[in-house]
């Protein structure tokens, strides 16, 4: 299938003083810039817009290629002409989260008050704040109702936050490999990552922007993360117990393939991610509880949102029981929903890799929502 071609990141700024955004924590923040990309065309009825929400380390560049880059966006397999999020039909929007470091306002942004990076003066952000910023962006397009909001992992948390906060603004929701709230195990892994960053002597309570960054701590956090994104089986398949060919005869070097892979992932990550953003965003994930405002049953009462939930069999970071809790809430609130637990060995990473199954489910689900049909004559298997 064809790719979108060359795309570029754009920027949307709002909440200029004195109209700052009131955050969930009670503090005010402004101005706020949100980096975003769009693919496809918004139709004249403005009813074909799909918002894609990215995961922890993602960004606005979900599909297509940036100029002179040979690596496509992070969900390029699913977004494009004829793909699941078919850009011939739908207008796809993806924005970098508030608190991020890929063009949106975050702790590494310059504070208008001090003319220096916010660092830890940046207020604590929540998933609700992230979604409210997305809502502002959507409003700026004149879109009153999204066809769908979709995302995996932390992207799925944003989908759930949309479902809870703005059920009247979306026609459907596609939360993938996600949870209403983090389990202690998920919080624990995030906390170890945060501690790794804060234990790095270069972190300096967040004030490292003028000097060396806490790259060792951030790389270690990323390595821990990557372990949780894979499965026992996928690691065995990918690395086995193979050793690197050019490993040096020295104690405790990264000799095994898996060690080399993690090191590569860690080193690669620090080139493109800010350590303070990692702290703020993982904290927002851990604090998130989609149902803190009440049961889904109450919140969705009278709204005709359709929901498609996906989980992956080998995903132990966001196990399928968490997706089943979403389904349980849909059952109780009478929301139309479908659920599939895809048989995959990739672990949590599956939401980025099992594109064939996802494409099938999303394609048909979106068609149904877009054309407002229940069952039509031509849709026999």
């Amino acid at each position, binding site marked *: 299938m064809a790719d979108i071609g060359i795309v570029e990141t754009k920027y949307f700024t709002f909440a200029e003083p004195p109209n700052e955004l009131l955050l969930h924590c009670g503090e005010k923040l402004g101005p706020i810039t949100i980096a975003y990309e769009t693919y496809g065309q918004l139709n004249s009825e403005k009813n074909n817009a799909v918002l894609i929400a990215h995961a922890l380390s993602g960004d606005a560049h979900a599909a297509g290629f940036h100029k002179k880059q040979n690596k496509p966006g992070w969900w390029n397999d699913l977004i494009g002409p004829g793909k699941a999020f078919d850009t011939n039909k739908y207008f796809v929007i993806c924005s970098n989260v508030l608190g991020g470091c890929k063009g949106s306002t975050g702790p590494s942004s310059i504070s208008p008050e001090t003319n220096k990076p916010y660092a830890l003066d940046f207020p604590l952000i929540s998933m609700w704040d992230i979604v409210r910023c997305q809502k502002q962006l959507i409003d700026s397009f004149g879109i009153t109702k999204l066809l769908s909001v979709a995302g995996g992992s932390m992207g799925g948390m944003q989908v759930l936050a949309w479902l809870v906060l703005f059920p009247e603004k979306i026609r459907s929701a596609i939360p993938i490999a996600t949870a209403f709230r983090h389990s202690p195990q998920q919080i624990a892994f995030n906390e170890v990552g945060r501690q790794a960053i804060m234990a790095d002597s270069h972190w300096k309570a967040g004030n490292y922007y003028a000097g060396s960054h806490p790259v060792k701590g951030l790389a270690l956090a990323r390595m821990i993360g990557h372990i949780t994104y894979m499965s026992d089986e996928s690691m065995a398949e990918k690395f086995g117990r193979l050793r690197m060919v050019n490993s040096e005869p020295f104690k405790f070097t990264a000799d095994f393939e898996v060690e080399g892979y993690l090191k590569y992932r860690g080193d690669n990550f620090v080139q493109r991610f800010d350590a303070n953003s990692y702290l703020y965003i993982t904290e927002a994930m851990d604090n998130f509880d989609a149902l803190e405002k009440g049961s889904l049953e109450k919140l969705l009462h009278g709204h005709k949102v359709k929901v498609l939930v996906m989980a992956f069999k080998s995903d132990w970071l966001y196990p399928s029981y968490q997706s089943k809790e979403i*389904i349980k809430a849909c059952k*109780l609130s009478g929301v139309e*929903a479908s659920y599939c637990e895809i048989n995959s060995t990739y672990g949590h990473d599956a939401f980025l890799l099992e594109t064939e199954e996802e494409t*099938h489910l999303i394609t048909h689900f979106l068609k149904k929502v877009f054309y407002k049909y229940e069952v039509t004559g031509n849709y026999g298997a």
Partner: protein
Amino acid sequence: MGHDNVRLDHRIISGLVPQGSAVLDLGCGNGDLLYILIKEKIVRGQGIEIDEQAIYKCVAKGLNVFHGDIDSGLADYQDKSFDYVILNQSLQQIRHFETVFNDALRVGKRVIIGLPNFAHFSSRFQLFFLGKAPVTRSLPHAWYDSPNVHFLSMTDFIDFCIRQNVTIEKRVYFTEHREISLFANMFATAGIFVVSR
């Protein structure tokens, strides 16, 4: 999907469900029955199915379906969430039939249940004269690879309903090609019952 190749049991069930009902199909398979019910009876339909490949077929038909087993699929629903809960030829997927049957009666105002008849005359013949566990066209599995964990006749089910204080509102007996009314426990290969409590 033309009307000609609709399975007889699906045709019968479609005849039993009133227009606009809310229907839960437990063990909905590829979704053929739900598809007919939504098309012909404009029902609000939901399926539950254990087989992943069948889920993909259901979603391709535009159906709402949950991937999961029947035994645990009902528990989350509130009482009388559906007008009809359908258990058609899904007995073999259910380990604890009595529990599921009672939960189906809790979640649905009525339950439509489609059962194979293990007391069909050809089964009786094989057991009685050949002394062998029956293998018939409607029960094609040998004892060692049969998915059926429960073996019952039409009479067994009726007795069970009486013991459970369940009212049988309607019953339809049929063979592979047509409905029958006489000596059903002998000649029917399957039966469909509408029950309530």
